């Protein structure tokens, strides 16, 4: 092995990497927020008694969960212009990740909602709570609390998946790394650094979300 490692050009480009980290975090956070909201809609459809709504939700969820996210983003980025909708790389990335996340979030949240025993809802009704309050305080919040760890790992998974969005020129971490690669040809050093950054990011996010969850879901002790 006669290769001299040289991390200098990689480290010299740190502002680019910081931009990339911010891009990655921005895209995955937005997709998670949109995806979770859309996912709750699909979850409600999935659990509704109406056959058509249920079938649409199941079809959507299974279609998304059984196809690669790379193909989904290609479909959005290259396919949508044929329908007259032209999206930038980042918009396509966020849209694809949102659609992807919605399917997974729907199933995760459904698990949480199903863990709420009917007696709880009946108790709320017996106490004269309004329907919306019952849903908010008795169904959703405990349900989200129950599946919070799963949602966190879904978020981390999506953050890692966002690396694929470089292929539609969305400006996230891997995109900048590939730019740097074509400028410096230091592939090995770059991808090693990139791996370390992603590892640090996922550890950091996992801890941060854990703390956030402990604060937000600390009721009724609060």
């Amino acid at each position, binding site marked *: *092995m006669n290769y001299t490692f040289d991390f200098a050009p990689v480290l010299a480009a740190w502002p680019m990497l910081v931009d990339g980290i911010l891009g990655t975090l921005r895209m995955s956070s937005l997709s998670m927020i949109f995806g979770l909201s859309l996912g709750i809609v699909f979850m409600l459809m999935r659990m509704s008694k109406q056959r058509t709504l249920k079938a649409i939700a199941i079809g959507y969820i299974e*279609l998304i969960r059984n196809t690669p996210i*790379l193909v989904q983003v290609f479909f959005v980025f290259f396919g949508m212009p044929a329908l007259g909708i032209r999206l930038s790389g980042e918009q396509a990335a966020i849209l694809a990740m949102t659609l992807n996340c919605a399917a997974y979030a729907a199933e995760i949240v459904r698990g949480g909602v199903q863990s709420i025993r009917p007696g709880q809802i009946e108790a709320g009704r017996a106490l004269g709570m309004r329907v919306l309050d019952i849903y908010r305080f008795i169904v959703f919040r405990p349900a989200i609390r129950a599946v919070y760890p799963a949602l966190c790992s879904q978020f981390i998974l999506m953050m890692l998946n966002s690396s694929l969005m470089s292929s539609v020129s969305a400006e996230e971490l891997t995109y900048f790394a590939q730019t740097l690669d074509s400028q410096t040809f230091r592939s*090995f050093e770059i*991808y090693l650094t990139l791996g370390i950054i992603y590892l640090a990011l996922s550890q950091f996010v996992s801890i941060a979300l854990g703390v956030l969850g402990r604060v937000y879901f600390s009721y009724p002790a609060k």
Partner: protein
Amino acid sequence: MIRQFGWGEFLFLLEGARWTVVLSLLAFTVGGALGLAVALGRTSKWAWLRILMATYIQIFQGTPLLIQLFFVYFGLPLLGFKVDVWVALTIGLSLHTSAFLGEIWRGSIQAVPNGQNEAAAALGIGYLHRMFDVVLPQAFRIGLPATISFLVNLIKGTALAALLGLTELTRSGQLMANITFQPLQVYGAVALIYFFICIPLTYCSARIERRLNAAR
């Protein structure tokens, strides 16, 4: 003259799908064998081995598959190996698989009641026989649904091979989309092929899981 996306073009995609299946099976077989070693290491009595395997798993679960593949693809030549894309992808995907299956199977091994292990030890059965004849057959049942779900993830993961230039299903789709200028139809068809490869597995996994839960 621009080609239309028709039956012949669809067959070209199916041709690509064959390599998706081959790559998935290769990675699943090699990765499964490695994953068993990872799971056994992760549940071993030596703390250093458990920590080592936990780190190994953490690294693969904390970095994107794409970066892992790039790393192998660009890293191996530095060690003096001339690798073509098939070898690099098989190695990369196998390592990825071994970490994930290792973690799934660690859970299954630990889910087998410890009395089984202790009883076998009390009967004087050695480690290998205890594992392969007593613990693992029971762990296999518990871990089967998650293992199949991971296989679905792996099949979807092989789509990344397209970004390294291997002409599997997704890459065939890219090529076909460039020839026909009908990306909507082409990527739709690609997605459907993946769907029909994966859905039987997903269905199987859900069914086995339901049956296992019912038995409990």
